[in-house]
Each structure stands twice: as structure tokens, then as C-alpha cells.
């Protein structure tokens, strides 16, 4: 009896490991196929622009509004601490650096995962379930180039732009709280920010982060959609997986990138 259950235990573990490795292999092959059609897909700008609209433009409102609120919260919390040390005018710097380096890319990516990536997964999953991808393939049109690649590229192009918008909205939110409501000096708020936020170190690094997140978000969303089981349940769980995996990937990548970019700066 004992031997049998031990055997079962190892069998189950073994199968889980094998399925995991198999899925990794599938993902690697899928990524390879995707990269293979990327040059071909990037020339069809009309398709990419369409996806930029659905993923990027339609995410504008949620990103901008979230940015304003995050900026306002940062201002309230930041002022609370800064005024203890008599350096409330540094509020602009603190908020801008937090946004541009970390919160901008990360929160935008999390919002994008929920707003756009999930929709892409559901769309591709349903296209597959209703044989639209098969029909396209039978018409000698590669679904990888026609459907998958434009959505992947749109995520990469949208993310840095949305991140800039999020961070800008955040700065405006902080300005409303800090300058208009609390009464910090307007000139100090902006000039300190201008003097201490570096284009290369802070803004460009933040944008690089957001582009890397865009690659991860785009890849996860099209992969999960492409391999979703062709049922209502399959598409639903693929959509959930997209949001979960994207969010975890973004946070993990953010840690790695932050260490690479900002360790030992001062």
C-alpha cells in the first residue's frame, strides 16, 4: 500500500514536471515562429495601427485616470514625510522619480494586462475556437503573421507611450495636490524636478522597462490565446492565466531590471 502511494506521488510529480517542460518547449517554438514572421508583419502597418487603436488608444482613459490618482496619492504621502524634514519643495522630484522609474512602467503594465492583454487572449482564443484561424490558414494566409504578430507588436509599441502618459498624468496629479491644494511653491516644485530627473538614467530607463514589459505582455497574451482550449471554459481560463502570468512576469522583470539599471547609482 505504502509503496503504491509513493509510486503514485512520484508519478504525479513527474507528470507535472513533464507537462511543464512540454509547455515551455511549445512556448519556445511559438516564439520562434512569431519572430520568424515579424519582419513580414511589421510591413503591414495598417494591421498594426488597428491593434494599436484597440490595445493602446482604448487604454488611454484608464491609464490617464489611474496616473492622476497615483500621482495624487504619492503627493499626499510624500508631503507627509518630506515636511518633517523641512524639504517639502522636493515633492516634485520624489513623485517624478517614483513615477518615471517604477510606478509608471509597472502600474501601466498591470493596467495593460487587465485591460488589453486579456482582451487579446480572449479574441485569439475565440478566433481559434470558431475555426477562424484554421480558415485563414486554409486560405494560405498565415495567422501568425496576420493575427498574432500585429497584436504582439502593438503591445510593444503601446506600452512606452502609455507609460509616458501615465507618468505625466501622475505628475499633474501631484501638482494639483502639492501646489494647488497644499501650497508648495510652484517654481520650486518644477525646477527641483527639472534639476534632478535625468533623461538618460530615469526617463529612458523607465521607457526601456516599459518596452520590455510590452514584450512580455504581448507574448503572454498571444500565446495563451493561441493555445486556449476551444471551449468557453478554455478561453476563460486562458484569459485569467494571461492576467496572472503577465502580472507576475512584470513584477519579476521589474526587480531584475531595477537591479541592473539603478544598483550603485550613487
Amino acid at each position, binding site marked *: 500500500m505504502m509503496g503504491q502511494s509513493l509510486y503514485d506521488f512520484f508519478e504525479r510529480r513527474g507528470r507535472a514536471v513533464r507537462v511543464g517542460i512540454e509547455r515551455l518547449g511549445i512556448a519556445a517554438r511559438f516564439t520562434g515562429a512569431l519572430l520568424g514572421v515579424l519582419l513580414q508583419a511589421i510591413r503591414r502597418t495598417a494591421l498594426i495601427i488597428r491593434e494599436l487603436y484597440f490595445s493602446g488608444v482604448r487604454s488611454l482613459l484608464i491609464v490617464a485616470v489611474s496616473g492622476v490618482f497615483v500621482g495624487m496619492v504619492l503627493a499626499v504621502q510624500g508631503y507627509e514625510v518630506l515636511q518633517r524634514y523641512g524639504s517639502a519643495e522636493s515633492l516634485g522630484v520624489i513623485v517624478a522619480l517614483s513615477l518615471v522609474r517604477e510606478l509608471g512602467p509597472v502600474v501601466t503594465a498591470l493596467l495593460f494586462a487587465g485591460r488589453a492583454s486579456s482582451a487579446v487572449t480572449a479574441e485569439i482564443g475565440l478566433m481559434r475556437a*470558431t*475555426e*477562424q484561424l484554421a*480558415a485563414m*490558414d*486554409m*486560405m*494560405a494566409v498565415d495567422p501568425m503573421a*496576420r493575427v498574432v504578430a500585429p497584436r504582439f507588436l502593438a503591445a510593444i509599441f503601446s506600452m512606452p507611450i502609455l507609460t509616458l502618459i501615465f507618468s505625466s498624468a501622475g505628475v499633474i496629479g501631484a501638482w494639483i495636490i502639492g501646489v494647488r491644494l497644499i501650497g508648495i511653491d510652484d517654481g520650486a516644485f518644477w525646477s527641483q524636478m527639472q534639476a534632478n530627473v535625468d533623461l538618460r538614467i530615469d526617463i529612458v530607463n523607465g521607457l526601456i522597462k516599459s518596452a520590455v514589459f510590452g514584450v512580455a505582455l504581448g507574448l503572454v497574451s498571444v500565446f495563451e490565446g493561441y493555445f486556449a482550449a476551444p471551449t468557453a471554459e478554455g478561453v476563460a481560463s486562458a484569459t485569467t492565466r494571461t492576467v496572472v502570468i503577465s502580472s507576475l512576469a512584470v513584477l519579476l522583470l521589474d526587480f531584475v531590471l531595477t537591479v541592473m539599471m539603478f544598483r550603485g547609482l550613487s
Partner: protein
Amino acid sequence: MDDGGPTAMIDLRDVRFSYGGRTILNGITLTIKRGEIVAVMGGSGGGKTTLLGLIGGRLKPDAGEVIVDGQNVPRLNKAALYALRRRIGMLFQFGALFTDLSVYDNVAFPLREQTDLPDALIDPLVLMKLEAVGLRGAKDLMPAELSGGMARRIALARAVALDPAVMLYDEPFTGLDPISIGIIGRLIKRLHRALGMTSIIVTHDINETLRLADRIVVLANGRIHRDLKPEDVTSSDDPFIRQFADGLPDGPVPFHYPAPDYAAELIG
């Protein structure tokens, strides 16, 4: 028996296919001549759709050869396979229309993707195909606004947009009302004649099949069970064909899914 000479459009030789450890096709040899309409019948899950997948090159056989218009499909690289597919039209079970495109754009899709024709030339082609299926007036509708029968007709117009030499039909009658079934059947026949195509229809609609097909191939247990003329179906005393033609619940295709003994399971 035809040996797959120049008149053969599709030639399957001892094709075997299994999926997930289950044998689906176990040695299929079938020749389809140019201009023929062949119906493939058989129980659900019997490998009928698999056959279309093999002919269209979406599936690869474990063994055997699949030759379409003189080309060995499983051995083609992607470019050659896509070149062949430009000459193959396929109607999917529920139409598989692109839900984000209008009826017009669905029919225009293959023309826009596969040709360099300007819009001014594509427009009359699309309208002609839509007129052929009687739905020119529906060109601005979205697929979600169509009935099942209309969607199937639009999908048919899209499938023949490039005037294919071979048409594959995957359950074209499934889920349609009797009027739509009649319309689709007649369209299949008319397009077949007008375009001089070779057609393969996978179906279990026996009435429509008898009216349409030149030949009926019955699959059972992964093999070709019978290959006969429509007029021989009604007189056939083969138990499998009788069960199929008469819609009998039990017979060679059992009513019961394999189960342990009923009495024993009830008593426990």
C-alpha cells in the same frame, strides 16, 4: 479502378493517422477524379474531418501518401503548401467567418490577401460571388447579424472567391433548417458545375448526399467500409449503411457507450 493517373485530383494511398494514441484512420486508399463530387459519410468522430485536414495539409499522416493535383502534400514546405492552398477552397462547419469583418470584407479577404488587384477590380468580383449565393443585399452586415444559413452561404462565397480547383466541405448542412439545407445543397452543386471543381463533402445528411454526390464513401473503424453510388444506398443491405440511411439508434454503431454490466453496476 482508377490508378491515380492524370485524371486523379486527389489520391490517398494507405493513409494512417492517429491522435493521442487513438488510431483514427487505419489505411485509407481513395482516388477522387477531377470534376467528381464525393461525399464522405460515417459516424461522429470517425475521421471524416481528419481526412479533410490531411488533404488540406493541416494534418500530417503517420504513414501513407496524400497527393493533391500531383503534389505530395505532407512533403511540401510552407511556401509550396500555401501555393497549393490558393487552389483549394474550404467551407468550415459553422462557416468560420471573421467576426471582426463585414460580410463584404470577409468575401474580399482572400482576394485582397492573395492578389494585387486594385479595389476597383475586387469590388465587382466580391459582388458577383455574393450575388451567386443570393446575399448581395447583405454585404454591409456583420457576421453576428446573420442567420446560420446566411453565414454558411457567405462562407461559401468566401471559399470560392479565388475560383478554387478543389472544394472541401466540412459538414456543410449541420445545424441548418431544411430550407437552408436545400439552398446550400443546390449552391454546392451549381458552383461545382460552374467552376469545374472537384468537391469533397464530409456530412451525415443522407438525403442531401443522395441528391448531390457522384459517389459516397462510408468510413467505419478508420477504414473505407463501402464506396458506392448514391442509387445503390437505398438498395444496400449492408447493416452499417442501413443503420445510417434509416437513422436506427442501435446497430453496428452501438447505442451504448462501452460500460460495465448494467445489472452488476446497479446492485453494486
